[in-house]
């Protein structure tokens, strides 16, 4: 019979290795500037993990995850901006006490929908709730009409474009193309110092593991197997008695929630949020992180986000105009040569050799996840 353990032995090793890397190796090896940079990379991992479930397991390719990342990030940024815009800090404005960009745009009053963001609990709630509500609306509209595949991908892409245009256009309410900048403190705690950034890096790491565990739970539940069944034989799943649309809506909302948390952690660690993180290009990049990591693997998604972003920083420092071509090339190479990404290279090439070196039997290929327990 089958094992339904939460983590198989191999997965346990994978989680432990990643934890060691994030909580021990990076903090020991990197200076605080680089650590903060890696913290930023890891915020994209939240999105990639969500995509591993949505796209890898469920076959739902969203090219608009930047929307949810951005919404989460903006919710956090709005709270921080309000805290930074005290009447004392903004006394030179014609209307003190409102964010600077509102004042520049001749707003004389804080818009009503900004008001809840004076409260941290409400803002934190919004970080998850706003992306989820958006995903829910898109999901209901698309999945109950059985829009899927390429059409769904294109529509999500359109949402990313629309949201970017809206944010840029409504400068007085959103900070426009510059985004929401000059964020300073969180409940009086200065988030710009090196110590604060290091602390936030660890908070980010802990949250990422919470998300990974949640994703692992979903993968291991019957819902996880249903996703795989839906990806391959959607029609058949209906005739097993499941309302396919509901499951797609759920997993899409879950991916949005993960992305929202990642966006909020981006804002906190990097100190701003802007429409450049919402649009079409970042949304596609996020899919590439997931593909490079191996779209079936949630741990692979984290490594994909780390590796591609590290490469991006390294290359775009020296050849900024070549990066986009590099990224495109990388994507094509992964799809053609390593369809299972880093995770595939690991489990097909490295792990068997490692196990052989350690004197263990080679990996049992027929049961990669749930090795027989009885």
């Amino acid at each position, binding site marked *: 019979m089958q094992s339904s353990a939460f983590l198989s032995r191999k997965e346990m090793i994978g989680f432990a290795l990643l934890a060691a890397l994030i909580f021990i190796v990076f903090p020991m090896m990197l200076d605080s500037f680089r650590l903060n940079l890696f913290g930023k990379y890891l915020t994209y991992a939240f999105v990639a993990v969500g995509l591993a479930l949505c796209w890898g397991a469920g076959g739902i390719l969203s090219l608009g995850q930047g929307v949810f990342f951005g919404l989460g990030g903006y919710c956090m940024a709005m709270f921080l901006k309000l805290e930074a815009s005290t009447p004392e800090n903004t006394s030179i404005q014609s209307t003190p006490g409102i964010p600077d960009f509102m004042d520049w745009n001749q707003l004389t009053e804080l818009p009503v929908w900004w008001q809840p963001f004076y409260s941290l609990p409400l803002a934190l709630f919004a970080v998850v709730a706003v992306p989820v509500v958006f995903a829910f609306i898109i999901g209901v509209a698309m999945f109950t009409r059985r829009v899927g595949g390429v059409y769904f991908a294109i529509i999500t892409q359109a949402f990313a474009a629309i949201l970017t245009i809206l944010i840029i256009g409504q400068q007085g309410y959103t900070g426009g193309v510059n985004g929401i900048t000059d964020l300073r403190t969180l409940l009086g705690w200065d988030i710009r110092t090196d110590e604060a950034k290091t602390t936030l890096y660890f908070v980010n790491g802990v949250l990422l593991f919470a998300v990974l565990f949640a994703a692992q739970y979903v993968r291991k539940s019957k819902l996880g197997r249903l996703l795989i069944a839906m990806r391959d034989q959607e029609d*058949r*799943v209906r005739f097993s008695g499941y309302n396919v649309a509901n499951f797609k809506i759920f997993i899409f909302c879950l991916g949005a929630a993960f992305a929202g948390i990642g966006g909020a952690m981006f804002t906190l660690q990097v100190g701003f949020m802007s429409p450049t993180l919402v649009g079409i290009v970042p949304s596609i990049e996020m899919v590439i992180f997931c593909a490079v990591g191996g779209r079936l693997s949630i741990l692979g998604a984290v490594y994909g986000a780390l590796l591609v972003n590290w490469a991006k920083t390294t290359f775009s420092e020296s050849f900024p105009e070549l990066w986009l071509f590099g990224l495109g090339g990388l994507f094509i190479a992964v799809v053609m040569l390593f369809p299972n990404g880093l995770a595939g290279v690991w489990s097909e090439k490295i792990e068997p050799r490692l196990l052989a070196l350690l004197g263990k039997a080679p990996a049992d290929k027929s049961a990669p996840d749930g090795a027989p327990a009885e």
Partner: protein
Amino acid sequence: MQERFILKVEDLTVSFDGFKAVDALSFYVEPNECRVIIGPNGAGKTTVLDLICGRTKATAGSVKFHDQELLTMREDQIVNAGVGRKFQTPSVYEDLTVFENLELSYPKGHSVFGALVFKRDTDVRARIKEIAETIFLADQLDEKAAFLSHGQKQWLEIGMLLIQDPELLMLDEPVAGMSVAERKKTAELLNRIIQDRSVIVIEHDMGFVADIATRVTVLHQGKTLSEGSMERVQNDPKVVEVYLGH
């Protein structure tokens, strides 16, 4: 009081761009009846099943299952109401194991939340084991469905239906494409599982049909050509002409 018919199909019509694949078809299925639908290729047999189980939307007519109108229901609602369907080509979840295939068909935990908290308890395991033995796959439980033979996939799909325990079972050419040995085993299996429920079977194998049918409906160009006992249908000159003659 026991109702007279479990399924009432009346004036069922579907038109694909003007072509009527099923044309004002009516038939009635009694409880515990085994109805066999035969007919030449393209007669509309598969389409009838598609219409009953909600896969294709009807243009006109009515399909009542226990006085519930099926034509306005979603596929999963129809399944959960007690109608199971086996497809003409074996359709199982290739990336999942035999165990997982059966588990997904087990009639519990079909809501999102239900699927998240679904536990493989002893009842589930016992039932899956029982079904696996019935469908000759007890030793393949941990094997991926992709590695099964064509015949084994057919059995697995039958097992996936059995575990749903439907009141009305619809089978589309269940012995097609099987080896002689597999065919014999399947006939045996089907004979066992069609007890105590209503069944609609599409089949070309006349020996097999004679063996299981309570009544036979002959379909031709979307319409009933003849209906009745196997004997009666076989001796109907119209049937001999369009179907049995060649």
